[in-house]
C-alpha cells in the first residue's frame, strides 16, 4: 500500500478532472484523499450539498465510484440500509460511506446520524465542514463559527459552533476523528485507521471554501493549516471513548487566520480577541478531556 502523500498522488484517480467544483474547493481535495485510501471499494451516499453539484450533471459524472444521491436529511439512514443489506447478502468488503456537508450533519441530518451512531451501523460517516450551507449560496449552519458573515448572518453569527465531533463521540462509537486537508499525513493516518475498523466511524474534515469564506483560491490549504495552528480546528481522535490530541498547534495568533478571509472582515480587534479566547478555552477543555482517559463509554 502507498506510504506517502506523493505515492498516493500517483495511484489511480477516482475523482476525475472536469468536475464542477469551484477552484480551490477544500471539499474536493478531501474527497480525493478519501477515495485513494479506500481504493474505490466504497459505496457513497451523498445528501444534498455542494458535492451533489461537484460530481457534474447527468449523464456524465466526475466520480469513478458508486454514488447514490439522496435527500438532505437522510445520509446516515440511507447508508444504514445499504450496510445492512450488504451484510444480509454476504458482502463483506465493501465500505459504505456517508459523505455529507456540515448542514447535512450538524443540522438536518443530525437525527439520522445519531440513530445510526447509536446502532453502531457499519459505515464511515465523513462530514466535510465548510462551515455554512454553501450549495444554497452561503447561509449559516450549526457549524458556522461565531461572528462569521453569511447571507443569513449579515452582521456576523451570534451563536457558537456546535461541538459536533464530541457529540458523535458521546454516542460511544468506535472511532471519531477531526482532520484537516492542511495536515494530510494526520488525515491519511486517521482514514487508514477508520478503514481497518468496523462499526460506526466518524471523520469530520475541515474544508475551506474560497467562495463562501471569500479568500483567494490558492489559499485553501494554507487556511486549513492556519485553522489548526490558531486553535480554530483542533485535530484529535476519540478511539473507544478515549480522546487523543493528534497534532500540537504551532501557536499562531488568530488574526493570521481571520485576516485572510473576508467573512471576518467586519471584526474589530476586540472581536478577534474575544474569539481567540473562545477558541483557546475550547482547546483547554479538550486538553482536560484528554487528561481524563476514557471519557465516553
Amino acid at each position, binding site marked *: 500500500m502507498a506510504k506517502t502523500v506523493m505515492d498516493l498522488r500517483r495511484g489511480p484517480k477516482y475523482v476525475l478532472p472536469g468536475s464542477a467544483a469551484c477552484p480551490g474547493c477544500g471539499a474536493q481535495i478531501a474527497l480525493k484523499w478519501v477515495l485513494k485510501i479506500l481504493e474505490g471499494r466504497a459505496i457513497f451516499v451523498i445528501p444534498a450539498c455542494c458535492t451533489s453539484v461537484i460530481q457534474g450533471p447527468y449523464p456524465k459524472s466526475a466520480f469513478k465510484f458508486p454514488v447514490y444521491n439522496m435527500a438532505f*436529511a437522510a445520509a446516515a439512514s*440511507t447508508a444504514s440500509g445499504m450496510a*445492512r*443489506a450488504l451484510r444480509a447478502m454476504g458482502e463483506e468488503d465493501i465500505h459504505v460511506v456517508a459523505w455529507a456537508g456540515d448542514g447535512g450533519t450538524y443540522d438536518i441530518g443530525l437525527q439520522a446520524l445519531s440513530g445510526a451512531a447509536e446502532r453502531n451501523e457499519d459505515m464511515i460517516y465523513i462530514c466535510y465542514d465548510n462551515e455554512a450551507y454553501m450549495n444554497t449560496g452561503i447561509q449559516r449552519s450549526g457549524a458556522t463559527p461565531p461572528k462569521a458573515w453569511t447571507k443569513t448572518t449579515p452582521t456576523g453569527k451570534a451563536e457558537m459552533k456546535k461541538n459536533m465531533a464530541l457529540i458523535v463521540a458521546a454516542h460511544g462509537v468506535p472511532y471519531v476523528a477531526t482532520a484537516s486537508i492542511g495536515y494530510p499525513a494526520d488525515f491519511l493516518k486517521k482514514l487508514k485507521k477508520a478503514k481497518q475498523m468496523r462499526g460506526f466511524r466518524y471523520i469530520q474534515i475541515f474544508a475551506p471554501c474560497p467562495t463562501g469564506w471569500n479568500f483567494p483560491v490558492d489559499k485553501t490549504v494554507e487556511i486549513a493549516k492556519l485553522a489548526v495552528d490558531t486553535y480554530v480546528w483542533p485535530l484529535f481522535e476519540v478511539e473507544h471513548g478515549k480522546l487523543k490530541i493528534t497534532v500540537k498547534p504551532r501557536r499562531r495568533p488568530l488574526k493570521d487566520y481571520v485576516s485572510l478571509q473576508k467573512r471576518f472582515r467586519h471584526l474589530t480587534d476586540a472581536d478577534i480577541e474575544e474569539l481567540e479566547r473562545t477558541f483557546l478555552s475550547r482547546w483547554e477543555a479538550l486538553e482536560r478531556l484528554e487528561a481524563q482517559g476514557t471519557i465516553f463509554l
Partner: protein
Amino acid sequence: MIQRQAERGKWDIITGNHAVAHAARLARVKVVPAYPITPQTTIVEYIADFIERGEMDAEYIRVESEHSAMAAAIGAAAVGARTFTATASQGLLLMHEVLHWAVGSRLPIGMAVVNRAVGPPWSIHVDHQDAISQRDTGWMIQFVSSNQEALDTVLMMYKVAERPDVLLPFMVCLDGFVLSHTFQPVHIPDQADVDAFLPEYRPPHWVMDPDRPITYGNLVMPEREYMEMRWSIHEAMLRAKEAIREVAGEFKRAFGRYHGDLLWEYETEDADILVVATGTLASEAEEAVDLLRSGGKGVGLVKVRSYRPFPGEEIVRLAEGRKAIVVLDRSLSFGQAGPLATDIRAALFTAGVSTPVVGFVTGLGGRDITYEDIAEIVKIAEERVKEGRLRPVEWYKLRR
C-alpha cells in the same frame, strides 16, 4: 394442484397485522427498517419476534424515525435487497419526501400502511387521508378488505413491483383496527409454495456496486431527460395495471384465491346503481348490496383495490348506462371533494360518459359506517339524482 397448495400451509385465526407480518416473512425480505406507530406497531413487533426466534432471516433496523425507515429501505434496495417496512398516519406523512425518492430511483420497495387519521386532533382510528396524501408520489397504492387479502396482497405486491416493466414501490393499505387488530381466519401458505410464486429479487437495473460504478441521481438540466424520466414513471404505472391483473391470475393459479385485480365486482351485472368504495367500507357495502337487493333494488358494488394505478377505464366501462354511481370516500381534498369521486368524475368526463356521480365523504376519523348506513347513502343518492341536484360533496353522518 390448487387444492394441494391450499391444503399445505396452515390455517390460523389472526389479526390483519399478524397476517401482514407473515407475508413479509414468507416473501423472504432481507431488510426491515422498523418504527412503531399505532395501529401499525404490531406488524414490526411480530417481525422482530420472527427474526429473533430464527423463523425469518432478515436484517432488522430499529431506526429513529419513519423518514429514516424509508431512507434505510431505499439504501437497502439500492444495493439490491428486497425490503419491507410498515407505517401509518403521521409516520407515512413524515416519509413523504423519501417516498418520492423511492419512486424516482425506481426501487420496488414494499410497505404496509395501516390507515389512520392524521392530526390534529389526535385520532388513532381508521381514515384514508394518510395514504391519499401520498397519491401523487408514484407509489402503487392498493387497499384490502380482509386479513387474508392483506397477506395475499403483500405477496403479490413484490411480484408486481419487481417486474422489469414496472419497478415502482408499492404500498398495501389496510384499515386501522378494523383489520389491523381484528381476528379473522387466515390461510398462511407454505414457504415452498411462496418461493415458487415469488422468486428471489434480482434487480434488472443498476445497483450500487464498486465494480460497476455509476452516479445515481445527479443534476439533470432542463433539456436533458428529467421530463422523460417522469414520463417513464407514468408509463410504468400504466403498465402496472396489466401487471396487477396478470399477477392476480398467477396467484389464483398458485394458491386458489382471487380477491379481484384492480377492481373487485359484486352483483354488478344487472345493477342500476353501483356503489364504489375501498377497504372495509367496501366489505360493508357488500352487505348493503344484499340488504338493498332483498328489498328489490338493483344495486351492485365495485371495490377499488388499486387506487394507483387507477382503473379509470375499467370503471367507465362499468358505469356506462347505469342510473347512478355512488362513491364513498374516507378522505377529502378540502374545498374540493372526495378524491375517489373526483378521479371517477374525471374518468367519466374524459370518456364522454354522463352517468351521474354522487360522492359521499364519510367515516372520517373512524366514525362507524355500517351496511345500514350505506343502504341509507344509496337512498340519498337516488334522491339527489332524481332531483338533479348533484354537488361535489355529500357529507354523511356529519353532526351539525
